[in-house]
């Protein structure tokens, strides 16, 4: 029997490996030493965001023609993982900015893309997603914020809550009810009738500059409509959330890897009962679970990224699976990390408590674990 050419290759290209090294070095130099402080101060500094912009990390998955970085889906995943390995609040900026910029380029009118699309792709304008409300979370179709036609535009009234980077974003992809149908507008922060208030004391990704937004007779021109009336959730915000799940999945892998890094170092240096912690079999069991979970989650992300890069219609379903598994894996890894660090794990002297708080966020945002359990069963991925 003739040997057939193997059809499956599971390795990064040389360019992807080089990019990962570059991202890793950036994180080691500019993020890891400061992440704890940013977390305590509840703020990623504006100066650092400028550095992200200078390196082309914001808007990186958008096409070069649009003004973005043109990163392939896998390289984008590697960037997201490495950023999250250093600081999940930085990762969350990448997530929300890119999900909105991509949705605008996917469904915005030619006029809207010309007017604001390039600035968003280049991150000259920072973007945020205004979806959740004080009384609306998982049930996104239940948004109460309303828009009604007036003159040559629309007047928006309502409130949005838990808006990541809402304190500083320039453009808000805002889901409203218009003519009774779910509809998306791109609202600029300088629109008349728009106001924002910082949300403090958040437990996880707490440097993400969360805000509550108020739309008080906020007028936007008709050209700020993204897509068409009635397609705001299914297609416009749906596109954003699909990307968000991909980004959060990789971010969860980054947290799990950071937990593993911290635990391998700690358990090989701290001694109890006369030997290093890593010599105890129950510790080895936790390390093994962490290693296996992290690798499995990363492989699911690779699979989702491969399909996304090929424009495969099954990519969204595969991304659901990756996000579901990776976020749970990150929480398991972070829980075990705190346990392995003992009392030290409950202090700010070690990063693992922050990892645990940040990991919990990944099980809630971009569709909670319970929403994923419903969505995956309804939209199962195809055969491998």
């Amino acid at each position, binding site marked *: 029997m003739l040997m057939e050419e193997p059809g499956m290759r599971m390795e990064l290209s040389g360019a992807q490996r080089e990019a990962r090294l570059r991202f890793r070095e950036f994180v080691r130099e500019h993020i890891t030493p400061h992440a704890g402080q940013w977390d305590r101060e509840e703020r990623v500094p504006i100066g650092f965001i400028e550095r992200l912009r200078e390196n082309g990390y914001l808007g990186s998955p958008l096409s070069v023609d649009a003004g973005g970085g043109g990163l392939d889906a896998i390289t984008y995943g590697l960037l997201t993982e490495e950023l999250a390995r250093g600081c999940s609040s930085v990762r969350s900026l990448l997530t929300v900015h890119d999900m909105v910029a991509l949705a605008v380029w996917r*469904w915005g009118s030619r006029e809207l893309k010309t007017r604001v699309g390039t600035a968003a792709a280049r991150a000259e304008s920072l973007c945020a997603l205004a979806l959740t409300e004080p009384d609306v979370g998982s049930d996104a179709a239940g948004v109460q914020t309303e828009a009604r036609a007036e003159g040559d535009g629309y007047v928006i009234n309502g409130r949005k809550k838990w808006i990541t980077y809402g304190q500083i974003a320039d453009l808000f992809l805002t889901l409203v009810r218009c003519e009774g149908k779910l509809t998306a507008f791109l609202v600029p922060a300088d629109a008349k009738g728009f106001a924002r208030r910082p949300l403090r004391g958040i437990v996880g990704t707490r440097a993400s500059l969360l805000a509550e937004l108020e739309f008080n007779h906020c007028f936007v021109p008709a050209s700020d409509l993204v897509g068409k009336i009635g397609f705001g959730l299914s*297609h416009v915000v749906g*596109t954003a959330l699909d990307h968000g799940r991909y980004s959060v999945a990789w971010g969860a892998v980054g947290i799990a890897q950071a937990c593993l890094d911290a635990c391998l170092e700690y358990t090989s240096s701290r001694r109890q009962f006369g030997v290093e912690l890593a010599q105890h079999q129950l510790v080895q069991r936790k390390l093994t679970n962490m290693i296996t979970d992290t690798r499995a989650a990363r492989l699911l992300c690779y699979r989702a990224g491969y399909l996304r890069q090929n424009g495969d219609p099954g990519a969204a379903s595969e991304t659901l699976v990756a996000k579901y598994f990776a976020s749970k894996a990150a929480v398991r890894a972070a829980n075990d990390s705190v346990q392995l660090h003992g009392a030290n794990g409950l202090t700010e002297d070690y990063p693992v408590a922050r990892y645990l708080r940040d990991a919990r966020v990944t099980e809630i945002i971009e569709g909670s674990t319970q929403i994923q359990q419903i969505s995956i069963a309804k939209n199962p991925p195809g055969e491998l």
Partner: protein
Amino acid sequence: MDFRKEKIKEFLSRLMRNHDLKDDEDIFALGFINSLAALQLVQFLEKEFGVTIGDEDLELDNFRTLNSMDELLERKLVSQAAV
């Protein structure tokens, strides 16, 4: 064109399981198409038939039946060929 409708029907059969979809049957009324599936349907049409679906095409009637999707594809392919 029948081959296009067959391709779309094959794609949708994954969501509709044993339902034998007719050319003029309303896929939204059948209740199989959730928001994620609607997005996947757009991606499928783009990849399978080499068209770009934009904001101007966002009308439910364009995606309601096999016949209406086939007509949308015909319009897109003719306009792309003319460019």
